[in-house]
């Protein structure tokens, strides 16, 4: 069995990649993917921690986190679609109507 520490490390790496991507990328879909990456890191972390503690709650948390991620994707895509309908672009750089 793999040591949970390795899984945690992987989760940390995934999270950092996701975070970095979410801040640096301009394409809304890619940003959404990065957010998903972060949420997947959360799932991994929960599962790893659950096996570290031998506690079933972590699994339950992971299932809930997956559900949250799914809802977030659904809503995110819908919002992006409406933005595309109005602005004809999904690049976050080109959407800057709102100012002081």
């Amino acid at each position: 069995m793999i040591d949970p520490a390795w899984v945690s490390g992987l989760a940390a790496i995934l999270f950092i990649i996701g975070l970095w991507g979410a801040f640096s990328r301009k394409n809304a879909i890619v940003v959404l993917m990065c957010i998903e990456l972060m949420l997947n890191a959360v799932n991994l972390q929960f599962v790893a921690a659950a096996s570290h503690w031998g506690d079933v709650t972590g699994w339950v948390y992971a299932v809930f986190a997956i559900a949250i991620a799914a809802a977030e994707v659904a809503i995110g895509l819908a919002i992006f679609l409406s933005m595309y309908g109005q602005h004809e672009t999904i690049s976050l750089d080109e959407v800057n109507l709102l100012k002081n």
Partner: protein
Amino acid sequence: MSDKTVEVFSTDFWQAFAPELVLVFGLVLIFIIPNLGNSKFRIPLTKVKVPWFLGGRRFKLTGSPAIPGMLATATLFTALGMMVIETIDGNSSATTVTSGDVVLLQIDNFSRLFEIIFLAAVLLASMASLDRVPANTFAGKKSLNEMYDNRRQADFYILMLTTALGMCTVALAQDLFVLFVGLELASLATYVLVGFHKESKAGAESGVKYFIVGSVASGIGLYGLSLLYLEFGSLQLATLSANWENGSILGTIALGLVLVGFGFKVSAAPFHFAAPDAYAGANSPVAGVLATASKAMGMIGLVRVLLVVALPGSESDESAVWLYTLATLSVVTMTWGNLAALGSKNPKRMLAYSSVAHAGYMMAALTAVGAWKWGEVDAPAEYAEAIVAAVLFHLFVLVAFKLGAFLVLALLEMEGGASRLSALSGLAKRDPLIGTAMFIFMLALAGVPPLAGFMSKFLVVAGIVSASIGELSTNGSVSFSELHWIWWLALAMFINSAISVFYYLRIGVVMFLDVPEEGRRKPLPYGASIRMAIWICLVATIILGLSGDTLIDMCYRAAESLNLG
């Protein structure tokens, strides 16, 4: 009555959660009632058709687009009424919900007070939306916007109720993960509400910005939770706070990440950038909910994590680091918010920045509680409770005057946009009562006595000052250097509220002095329910300022039920 523990889904559980059940029931009704129709269901392999009532040709009565709004308002009103009746007489019993040995939810004065704040805000916003997103009959020729509004009535109120339900979960949660699930439920609904007017470019844009920043923040917060779980093996508030002293540096990092998630919700610096965009693009009642209820939801998170779970103990050096960080952030937040509001020409953005500033005030108060909690100030627990009570009072009265200001803007939006300061010009001449109401809301936001805004700011500052003095006063002679440095936070708060007077007064001046814009010369559109909502806010602003004793008592009981000591 005494405290009791109930198993989830037991009879006692249903009894205790009657108000929340009303919300769920109302939500289901809004799903079903607009869809009632004459469709029939054919039993497979036979020719027998049974009336099924869902779908088909909608019934004229239940299919009316006005139904969802009425239902939502009635539901919220019922739930709010039940809670107020239950709480106002000083019921001090707590009901804890467990599943096995896991504590999930707890009804006590603290959670009930927050639920009242949430439901009041959402109720006022949905009352206002009856006119702001108007429902028309299907008869006759409709403009495209009216058709859109008609089709989306049910969606809008379903989202409103979902937000309320999610917020209530946050208030009740005794497990950080449950809290986060509630937070997500409310957030996901608000993402859609912010981008609800997808036909406008601003609506779509603000939806995207709010969604991206919000989901990144909640992703970070969730990762923080998973680290906390890794460190302590549980996310129960009780377990966390008991084991906190033994935690390693990982726990501190995790806590920082969790705070990012909540910091976004209260729109504290440096996570406040999305708030002005979101408020400017959303329609005003929704923006009002974001500025009041959603902020209160974030404050619950901060209170639970910072004050209940607590930070490093008094002996550890790390407590000082946390305290300085929080104090710096609070000063930065309030100053940034006020300075940005000074330069803003859009009343909605201005209110958004002012709400950032208010977040700073509340963080300053939390710093003071922290200083007490971490043993830097020598004072009994009542001092800390007084500050928490002041924050609760502030959150409560914000619903009255901040939401009220947004509702006035919503009234202006009904005749066109309200995104320029000039939209307000001459308001006092066009409609003296609404203009005066708006001016009173502005004065309350600035903290001018005897309005509720003064009372709340006064209580917060008094709380901070009292904590900075602590028990020093008993020996008569005090040197200034003996006061704890959080006293300077009180000074920063007051200087900031003096700065804020500039932009609040500007709105008053524009309303009373300027000539109305072209096309805005006529009286304001009449909307019975939005005007009623504004009057409720106005009366509450004045009454709670003049005589807030009942509410202050409620807030104290709520703060006591946190068991800070």
